[in-house]
């Protein structure tokens, strides 16, 4: 393999990226504009702007004698910057406001809350003597924050207020209805969206690769290059390198734009480096899909349409839109590679998961395997059926 040939082809492809308006828009301008627009719409410019959510509380335990546990729990909830607690005299009035969108959720503290907490502290290691009860929670199903973050916040506050940190994994007498496994802190909606933006931008490489291959084929350029001593390995290597460079530019741009509108992901430089590597690996998958598209498409126009067969499912089922989808759609999402990119980036950036955690390594394995498979299938199909 001659590096001179590979470098010449990479330089040519990077010039295409900068000089062709369609490629420039799809690879550079579109992700940058999208990130900026989402950041302005759902985030806060100039830092992690705090957003407060109005929560209704119906304290049925207030009628009992010495309701100290309930008051302690409510006090802790009130101290959270993200929540603004609004007391309600009854469940009905709170529900009226919830339906009207005036509040994002309702917490109903049961009458036997005090009794339940007392029973726990009387016999912390003897569950048979506990008085069990349930903290009812109602959330606005149209609010992404309410559906995903409020329940974990209540769970965490309850644990800290009544039991202390050390009892998190043990059985307790007070349960929260329908608990979520998400651990959230002060979070803007944009912070839920941002990890998916990295995958979202990279997905469009499929279209760019498909268009460039079909156009080069139409112009007779693939045949012309084939009449030179350039080997298929040299040619494909150049495609992989130039598209990875494109994906890296995209990822840096998305990150820079997100940072500019106040996005501050969790994690350190290792986390960030790992995230970029993950996006680069994912770009191989999209190059593979682009080659498959170019094999199927008879013209560059057709390539644009066929590319959406790969783009749409990845976009709607595997990026930030996924979290707002139905349970069925989210299950189907597990069959698209972008889901695992978004999942890993969400764990890294939103939850602060370490790069060596089981979830991240699983996501990396899936993305790497699928990307290599897609690239190999794309190369083989294009070499066999797509060059002429």
């Amino acid at each position, binding site marked *: 393999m001659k590096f001179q040939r590979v470098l010449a082809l990479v330089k040519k492809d990077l010039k295409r990226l900068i000089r062709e308006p369609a490629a420039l828009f799809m690879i550079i301008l579109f992700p940058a504009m999208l990130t900026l627009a989402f950041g302005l719409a759902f985030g806060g410019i100039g830092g992690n702007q705090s957003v407060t959510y109005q929560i209704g509380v119906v304290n049925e335990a207030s009628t009992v004698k010495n309701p100290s546990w309930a008051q302690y729990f409510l006090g802790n909830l009130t101290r959270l910057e993200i929540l603004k607690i609004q007391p309600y005299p009854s469940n009905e009035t709170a529900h009226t406001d919830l339906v009207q969108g005036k509040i994002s959720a309702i917490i109903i503290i049961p009458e036997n809350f005090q009794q339940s907490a007392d029973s726990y502290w009387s016999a912390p290691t003897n569950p048979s003597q506990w008085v069990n009860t349930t903290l009812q929670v109602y959330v606005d199903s149209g609010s992404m924050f309410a559906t995903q973050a409020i329940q974990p916040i209540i769970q965490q506050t309850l644990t800290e207020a009544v039991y202390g940190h050390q009892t998190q994994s043990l059985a307790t007498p007070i349960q929260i209805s329908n608990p979520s496994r998400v651990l959230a802190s002060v979070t803007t909606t944009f912070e839920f969206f941002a990890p998916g933006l990295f995958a979202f931008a990279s997905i469009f490489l499929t279209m760019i690769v498909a268009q460039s291959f079909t156009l080069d084929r139409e112009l007779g350029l693939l045949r012309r290059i084939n*009449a*030179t001593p350039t080997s298929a390995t040299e040619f494909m290597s150049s495609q992989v390198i130039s598209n990875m460079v494109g994906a890296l530019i995209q990822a840096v741009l998305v990150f820079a734009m997100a940072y500019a509108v106040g996005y501050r992901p969790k994690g350190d430089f290792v986390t960030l480096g790992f995230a970029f590597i993950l996006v680069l690996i994912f770009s191989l998958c999209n190059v593979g899909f682009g080659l498959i598209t170019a094999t199927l498409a008879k013209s560059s126009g057709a390539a644009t349409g066929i590319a959406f067969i790969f783009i749409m499912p990845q976009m709607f089922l595997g990026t930030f839109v996924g979290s707002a989808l139905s349970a069925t759609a989210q299950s189907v999402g597990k069959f698209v590679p972008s889901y695992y990119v978004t999942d890993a980036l969400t764990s890294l950036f939103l939850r602060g998961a370490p790069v060596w955690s089981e979830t991240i390594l699983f996501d990396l394995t899936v993305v790497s395997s699928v990307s290599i498979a897609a690239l190999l299938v794309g190369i083989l199909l294009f070499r066999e059926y797509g060059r002429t």
Partner: protein
Amino acid sequence: MIENLTKKFEDVTAVDGLSLEIEKRELFGLLGPNGAGKTTVIKVLCGLLDPTSGSVHVGGYDISKETTKVKELIGVCPQDVAAYPFLSGRENVELFGNLHAMPKMKLKKNTEELLEKMSLSEDAGRRLGKYSGGMKRRINLIMALVHDPEIAFLDEPTVAMDPQSRHAVWNFIGELKKRGKTIILTTHYMEEAEELCDRIGIIDHGKLIALDSPKQLKDRFKAKDLEEVFIELTGRKIREEM
């Protein structure tokens, strides 16, 4: 050397039992109407198409077994302009020089010389998409020859060119011959074939129907030009089928 070459596309026979030997340093013209099979012959000689049957050797190498060796020897100018519109003329030429792994200095020297000869030096920095048709065709030719190949395949290099550009290309091809290059030229312009070629093979419906120097062909058929030779051979004009 081509021996009994046949190339079929499903049920269409594009080249039918063609046998031909082209000498080193010869300027050989493959003449025939559109669809006669000229471009198919060139594509087989360049290793772009596999022959259905027969054998082809280029520069002593078997095209089926030693394709890379052949590709190192040849330069191919396709019939339709095949160049990147988003690159400048110079960048297109340099790209193909790099694909032939030319040393940097030699590539720069050859590029500038060829651009000068084709009167494109001033416009070489402009993107190809902004060139006129004639300028694109001249860049198309330079891209094929920048690496100074031993054997050049020029497929209709002057088609759709204005007379001035065409004569510039003829002069350029003449210079290549003087420098000892082997050139295989396809054309359906009789005057071009007559002006440039040492020998001519006339091809029709995929078969070689005549092979000789322009003068001897004219003498044999007592014709005043090659157009009349073609009429004598086929009963029709070469450009009627365009």
